[in-house]
């Protein structure tokens, strides 16, 4: 028996959220007194694969088939399920990334495995296998108990810390049979802004809403984000008005995030927006309306005009970094 963790790569590299998934899977493997195997698909260098040993993977299966160098949901799911069977891994862990969300359900069906989509904690093994995940778009948590023999867990980014647990990772080539019928979705182009921090993975987020009055005023938001090393986000009205891209929309019908710090500028805090950020560790609200509902869930608040307050904060941040 072992635990299998799928380590998603982007441009041949593993992100922090992937190391989080490895650390999480290692904690489960330790609890079950078994080994952790990682599976990587795509062109990843040996040096990068060995990094996985730092977080507890004792074996790394590497799949370098040319047809799989780009993500193909159907084929990747088949490869991972086959690896799980080869390694007798009853538990498969992966990061709940955009690709992970498409992959986990297919792996689960193949393995007749109960699926936890969006885990925020380690499983509770007392009396079964119960895992807490987010529900109602951030307004609640659901503890889901799996009764199947096989289990798949997709872990939310920034929910479990990266933990070093060094071991030597043996790297092994894995060449599963790939069905042509699994490769019918063909990637034509990948567009990635590498200089921006991706919102679902971000530890720090600066967000703004209608209080900014227009898209031309976003310069200070971007400047603050850049100084902090934060991702930018926005409220629904801003995204609906096309002031900012849809991918920045945080809320019940946008994305739910759980950064360490969420700074909300000129956002009143409608219940749908709050749902998307309720798992943030620290919330800062800047709004000129003292009655703004957002203040009720803030850790720190400043009642004032964003156009006066934000430049002061930017100046203080520059001094602090200087």
């Amino acid at each position, binding site marked *: 028996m072992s635990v299998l963790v799928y380590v998603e790569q982007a441009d041949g590299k593993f992100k922090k959220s992937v190391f989080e998934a490895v650390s999480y899977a290692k904690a489960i493997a330790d609890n079950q007194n078994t080994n952790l195997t990682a599976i990587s698909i795509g062109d990843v260098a040996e040096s990068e694969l060995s990094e996985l040993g730092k977080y507890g993977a004792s074996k790394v299966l590497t799949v370098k088939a040319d047809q799989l160098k780009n993500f193909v949901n159907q084929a990747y799911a088949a490869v991972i399920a086959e690896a799980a069977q080869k390694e007798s891994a009853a538990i498969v862990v992966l990061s709940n990334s955009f690709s992970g*969300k498409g992959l986990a359900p297919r792996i689960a069906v193949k393995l007749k495995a109960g699926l936890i989509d969006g885990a925020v904690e380690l499983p509770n093994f007392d009396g079964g296998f119960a895992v807490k995940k987010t529900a109602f778009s951030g307004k609640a948590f659901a503890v889901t108990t799996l009764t199947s023999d096989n289990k798949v867990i997709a872990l939310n980014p920034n929910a479990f810390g990266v933990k070093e647990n060094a071991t030597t990772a043996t790297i092994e080539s894995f060449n599963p049979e790939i069905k042509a019928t699994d490769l*019918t979705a063909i990637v034509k182009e990948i567009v990635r*802004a590498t200089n921006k921090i991706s919102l679902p993975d971000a530890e720090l987020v600066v967000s703004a809403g209608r209080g900014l009055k227009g898209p031309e005023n976003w310069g200070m938001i971007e400047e603050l984000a850049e100084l902090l090393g934060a991702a930018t986000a926005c409220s629904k009205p801003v995204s609906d008005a096309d002031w900012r891209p*849809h991918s920045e929309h945080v809320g019940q019908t946008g994305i739910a995030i759980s950064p360490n710090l969420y700074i909300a500028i000129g956002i009143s805090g409608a219940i749908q927006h709050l749902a998307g950020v309720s798992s943030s560790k620290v919330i800062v609200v800047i709004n000129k309306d003292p009655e703004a509902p957002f203040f009720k869930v803030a*850790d*720190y608040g400043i*009642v004032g005009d964003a156009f006066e307050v934000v430049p002061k904060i930017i100046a*203080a941040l520059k001094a602090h970094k200087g």
Partner: protein
Amino acid sequence: MKILVCISNVPDTTTKITFTNDNTQFNTAGVQFIVNPYDEIALSRAIELCEGGKGTVTVINVGEVATEPTIRKALAIGADDAVRVNAAPRDAYFTAFQIAEYAKTNDFDMILCGRESIDYNGSQVAAMIGEFLAIPSISIIKKLDYDGSTATIEREIEGGKEVLTVTGKFVASCAEGTAEAKIPNMRGIMSARTKPLQVIEAVAIEELGKVTKFETPAPRGAVKLIPADHAEELISLLHSEAKVI
């Protein structure tokens, strides 16, 4: 062209979420139910693709008779006919299986879902349907074009997007950007009453797990207010007190 759109019945976005029965069940008392917002986006795109007599849109819902008003809303938005699988949507695995079983005996060019339902946020159903039917699934898409045999799709990835093509049947789950959600007009609302709504029985499948408890997030303490003319204090507080920067 025939498109199948999966719709789920979810609590309205302003609902204050509470639980009953010792926190094991969602409290439906006084809750307004709506078509899942992402499913509306999927439905709107399907209607656009079928416009001008190019095809028909069938909506399918797994639910008990109480979901029929929501199904009628989908018909009012512009679907041509509806199917209700008569069972409570126990979980995504069960729901996806019912839809896949229906799709097996009814020929659809594509199956569209919303990216996730706003109650369980699983993002599971579309991909599971794909696996049950052994066809490609593309999750969390923001653009879908179709020329009659090949679909050109953009899906969201961290920091950007991926453009891909699929020829033949597929399942896709739709996010914002795929379409503007259509609002039912008077004619739609009137015709919804008489459009066909077929009820079929569910097919048994094993249960792999279930929600055993709900929890609400711990309330935060009172906000610490910083005077606007000393806004710079925020930085030192975030650094030394909150320790997040």
